[in-house]
């Protein structure tokens, strides 16, 4: 399964939520979108799922354009952040799961039921038979998230979009859900995972895409992004991620500029907060290829790199 985003833009009533995002996703690789609130992570996920229309650019799944509100591909499924609103409270878990399994397939009810029991067992909900008869409000948040995951992977999904699936769960529950998601990779499931925590991103993903105010600012292999971030914003994000192994944190310089010249739409989105700001940052910033990574920052422009003034 191949998902392609080409220069995708999304505006909500004149506010730009996603700006010129190009991204290539392929099953077999796990990718994580990382960024703070309002960085456009969820909007991108919803556009891929066809839950939101693009304002500009194109999204294609297997070469076919995604239509907002259109029918979803069975191979592409989503797990939402809030396990409490992902189920119809009037139907049992069994009903929700069996219906999802039957949709678009030729499984009869009996077969679908067997498969549902099997799935619940796989995601660690036992006794599975008994779970089928339960209503969503009889399950805890972690259990519901497990059902969501079973529903997503059950229909043979190759690609699961998971939007902060653990952020509303308790520590011990969250770690087990993360472990389950990793476990399921053996079923050839790949993830587009969304989080603001780089440690979680590194645990789940092979590749990390860092978003800031709707733009991709850095993209590269997960390990490298976490061990050696290039973009000043990625550096900030890493610094803000709790790390018990790091010595007590020294606070880096925080800036907030309000007097930038020119047209705000053209600036680097991080210009007003960046400690490495120069005049070049008020003009459109090209994406640079740095050591196998994409970085959108003037620090890595060919001129600056050859002058060797880049920060390390």
């Amino acid at each position, binding site marked *: 399964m191949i998902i392609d985003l080409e220069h995708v833009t999304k505006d909500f009533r004149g506010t730009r939520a996603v700006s010129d995002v190009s991204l290539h996703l392929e099953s077999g690789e796990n990718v994580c979108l990382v960024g*703070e*609130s309002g960085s456009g992570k969820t909007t991108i996920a919803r556009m891929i799922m066809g839950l939101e229309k693009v304002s500009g650019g194109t999204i294609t799944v297997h070469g076919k354009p995604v239509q907002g509100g259109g029918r979803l591909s069975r191979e592409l499924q989503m797990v939402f952040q809030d396990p409490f609103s992902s189920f119809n409270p009037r139907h049992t878990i069994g009903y929700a799961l069996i219906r999802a399994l039957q949709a678009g397939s030729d499984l009869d009810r009996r077969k679908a039921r067997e498969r549902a029991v099997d799935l619940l067992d796989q995601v660690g909900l036992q006794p599975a038979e008994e779970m089928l008869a339960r209503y969503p409000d009889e399950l805890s948040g972690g259990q519901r998230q497990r059902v969501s995951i079973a529903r997503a992977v059950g229909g043979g999904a190759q690609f699961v979009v998971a939007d902060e699936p653990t952020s509303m769960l*308790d*520590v*011990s529950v969250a770690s087990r859900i993360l472990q389950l998601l990793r476990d399921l990779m053996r079923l050839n499931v790949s993830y587009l995972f969304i989080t*603001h925590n780089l*440690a979680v991103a590194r645990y789940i993903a092979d590749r990390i895409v860092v978003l800031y105010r709707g733009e991709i600012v850095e993209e590269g292999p997960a390990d490298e992004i976490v*061990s050696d971030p290039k973009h000043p914003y990625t550096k900030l994000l890493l610094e803000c991620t709790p*790390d018990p192994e790091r010595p007590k944190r020294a606070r880096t310089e925080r800036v907030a500029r309000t007097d930038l010249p020119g047209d705000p739409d053209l600036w680097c989105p991080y210009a007003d907060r960046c400690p490495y700001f120069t005049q070049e940052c008020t003009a459109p910033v090209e994406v640079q290829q740095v050591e196998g990574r994409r970085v959108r920052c003037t620090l890595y422009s060919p001129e600056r790199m050859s002058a060797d003034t880049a920060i390390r």
Partner: protein
Amino acid sequence: MTAPVTAALDTPASLTLHDFSVTYHRGRHIVEAVRRVNLTVRRGEVLGVVGESGCGKSSLALGLLHLLPADKASVGGSVKIGSHELVGASSAELQEVRWRDVSVVPQSAMNALSPVLRIGDQIADVVRAHTQESKRSARRTAEDVLVRVGLQPEHARSFPHELSGGMRQRAVIAMAIALEPEIVILDEPTTALDVVTQQLVLEQIMELRAEIGFSLVFITHDLPLLLEWSDRIAVMYAGGFVEIGPQQQIAENPLHPYTRKLLGSFPSLRGQRDEMATIPGQPWDLRRRGRGCLFAPRCDARMDVCTAETPHLVTEDGRAVACFLHHNNVSPDGAAIEGATA
């Protein structure tokens, strides 16, 4: 490593809990949410309280100031702010103490703010309830504290829904520090925020603490976060403390098996990517009474003694642990000790 602890022991206590308990009555059920805990918070100290949902940490925060409904919950033991006893105090006395000596910021900032009043007026109300300030001067005080927490004076005229999550959290903190209390208790202050906003809010709180000098009790389930911000950490399980110690010792050499599991159940920024421990089983159901160590059903270093007797919090060299693996008067079999110290 012992130096800061000894120093802390010399400073006067802001808050002392002695056999403090919080009990809920639900019909015939009795839920012991906080079970006779003992704790001292020194002046100027940041004490982190960590534990899973349902371990009683929020009950602890709310119970201190009797912020729980009196017909459903009762508190016992002793809570002292300086030399002032709060358990058994009249509601007028408690009213005096709240905000002036102790501020409790509950989980989710929206719960602390009224949606129908302007931020500035809510802070001014708190100020006027405890001082002789005129309405006008209290409003000015409100604007001043909003600036102190990094907001603009104009935000005094905003309603809570007009602010972002991070700004609302700052507004509640402004209210908490308006009267420069002795101690501020923050219950999951940053859980709903993203990592960057969380960092900025915590930096601000620590700056204010340095300026005003209040002690801080910081309650969360996020142990890595606590390790970065606290001087001392108290680990709570099933309504009691299972380990209390200086931040560095908890980070480098956690003693209680629960602390160790908790520390391991967050993905790391270093080391093996797929390395993450999980805690088996469910947290202890506080409606149950139980015998012995309440973590025993989930513990992989469990011994016979653990289900027969209750381990008490034993203090040695400035750190305390409630676990038979570390109590010398019990002689556990060697295998368990080896397994625990490995």
